[in-house]
């Protein structure tokens, strides 16, 4: 917290030294990734709406509509207009890249993907899903087991942009302190959501889950979901730093469980170069994960950030003027060979 206060402009040194682009590249890539994921889901609906609009302007479409409304309404005469609409719909098929939303989707008509956390709620609620959903969840699980569970949070989840914006503004306005609650609250919430699903037999958490609500809203129509975005923003801005993603969100908690084994990790490989500027602490959404890796050399800890709650966002790599951090493999958790390697065996 104190670190955040000191660094009202974290990353300034890195930008001056490495240039703006190099000091922001992971952030830019991350925003790109978030937007591309969203775009993949939106191409279909937008193209569909465009085709529908074009169809409505066409006289043939107009004719079929009239037949449907005013024509002799027998089952036979209804058929042509119905099949015409059907053809228009099939013409739109190729435009779909990804159908559905984050809970479950179908890519290019073949690849099913299902959110394993939503599926876990479903199973807790007492419904065994079809093979499609199980395969989809399996693919997602394997992916995040490889790249790090909370890569979902940093690179995919649309709420991340909201909470990052809130944190940025919190820094700019110099808002400090606020409510304090444990970062483990999210695991309690994760358990509670599964328990409530089991007790009520419904996916109760999905009634309020801002993550799925906002993504579904962006793809299928927002309704009052804007209000939820506002609530999360204000929570992170005024109530507590990184309150949602860093303390409460059970979706992130679920994915963090996959991060404890993933090979892809951030490593403070050049930690000897660290000059304690605290910029990485200031930007990190999960500050507690840095210390053991960056400052653990004396205690015999390796430089790889092992915590499943590291989101692999790479912001620390960006803002470090001395290039202490880099993406690395979990097994490279040995620092300078010799001295520390021996110590590592001890605990």
């Amino acid at each position, binding site marked *: 917290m104190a670190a955040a206060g000191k660094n009202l402009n974290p990353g300034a040194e890195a930008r001056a030294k490495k240039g703006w682009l190099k000091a922001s590249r992971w952030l830019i890539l991350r925003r790109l990734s978030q937007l591309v994921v969203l775009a993949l889901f939106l191409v279909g609906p937008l193209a569909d709406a465009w085709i529908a609009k074009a169809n409505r302007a066409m006289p043939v479409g107009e004719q079929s509509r009239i037949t449907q409304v005013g024509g002799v309404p027998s089952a036979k005469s209804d058929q042509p207009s119905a099949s015409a609409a*059907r053809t228009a719909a099939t013409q739109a098929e190729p435009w779909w890249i990804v159908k*559905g939303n984050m809970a479950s989707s179908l890519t290019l008509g073949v690849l099913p993907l*299902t959110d394993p956390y939503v599926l876990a709620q479903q199973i807790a609620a*007492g419904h065994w899903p079809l093979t499609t959903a199980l395969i989809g969840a399996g693919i997602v699980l394997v992916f995040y087991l490889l790249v790090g569970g909370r890569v979902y949070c940093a690179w995919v989840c649309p709420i991340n942009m909201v909470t990052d914006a809130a944190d940025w503004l919190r820094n700019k306005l110099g808002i400090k302190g606020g409510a304090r609650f444990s970062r483990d609250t999210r695991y*309690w919430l994760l358990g509670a959501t599964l328990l409530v699903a089991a007790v009520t037999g419904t*996916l109760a958490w999905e009634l309020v889950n801002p993550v799925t*609500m906002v993504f579904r809203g962006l793809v299928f129509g927002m*309704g009052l979901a804007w209000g939820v975005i506002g609530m999360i923003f204000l929570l992170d801005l005024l109530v507590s730093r990184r309150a949602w993603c860093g303390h409460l969100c059970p979706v992130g908690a679920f994915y963090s469980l996959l991060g404890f084994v993933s090979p892809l990790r951030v490593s403070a490989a050049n930690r000897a170069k660290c000059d304690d500027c605290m910029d990485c602490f200031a930007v990190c959404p999960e500050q507690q994960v840095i210390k053991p890796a960056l400052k653990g050399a004396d205690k015999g800890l390796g430089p790889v950030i092992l915590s499943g709650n590291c989101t692999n966002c790479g912001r620390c790599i960006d803002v470090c003027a001395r290039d202490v951090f880099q993406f690395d493999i979990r097994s490279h958790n040995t620092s300078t060979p010799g001295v520390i390697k021996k110590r590592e065996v001890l605990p």
Partner: protein
Amino acid sequence: MAEQQQGKGMSPARRQFLTDTVRTACGVGLVALGLGLYSRNTRALPAEAIRPPGALTEHDFLGACVRCGLCVRDCPYDTLKLARPGEPVTLGTPYFTARDIPCEMCPDIPCVKACPTGALDPKLEKIEDSRMGLAVVIDQESCIAFQGLRCEVCFNVCPIRNKAITLEFRHNERTMKHAIFIPIVHSDACTGCGKCEKSCILEEAAIKVLPMHLAKGMLGRHYRLGWEEKREAGGALVTPDLPHQYNLPDGMRYEHGGRGLIQSPTAPGVEMPSGPALEAIPRRGGGL
């Protein structure tokens, strides 16, 4: 005493840890309780919201549907939509409003095929077997057919024509010379697609699709219809009625369901007593 000692022996860190844990647990417990109660409140589906074909019963559906919208995407007629925050339908679940866009009953049922979880039952193979709801002629006072006017639009647009909705002819008591064409819905054929509700010519539809549990009554479970049981069993299941014993004057007998009161020709001397009670007895065929 013992507790005090324990309290003294507890390190501040341990005490802090326990306090924090209890605090978090209580907070999360409250959230869970609120969530559970809220989920119970949202379980009621508004009558005008109809689930897609093959949807499990509402309770099972809410435990099975992951709110992904794949059924919505594969619906070629934009019939289905996902409930948005603020709408009275459970958040994110698919439904349609018959009066806006009814179900066109695609024979290949793409919405069911799209469902990855089985919330829309893949066992539904023929769309005619789906029961999304049941059409009910809900207001006979405004339905113009009941006024003796020719309409029959619901009858004609019905995809299961002349089975799900049939016309019953009644005498028009007002004009005394025309027929009234009454639409009658049959639950053994109606899928609840809602085309009738969509096409009803009234400003507010007189025929509406309702969820099954609202549309249907149910006979008491112990009830048996005698004639049905008799037909199934191939004979009466109770002791057959004894032939009725009539107490009539000599030479008279009574044929129930037949000729009525009969005077036997073998006793010509008997005179019929007269009186209003006897006059009321039907005397068909035989007689005086």
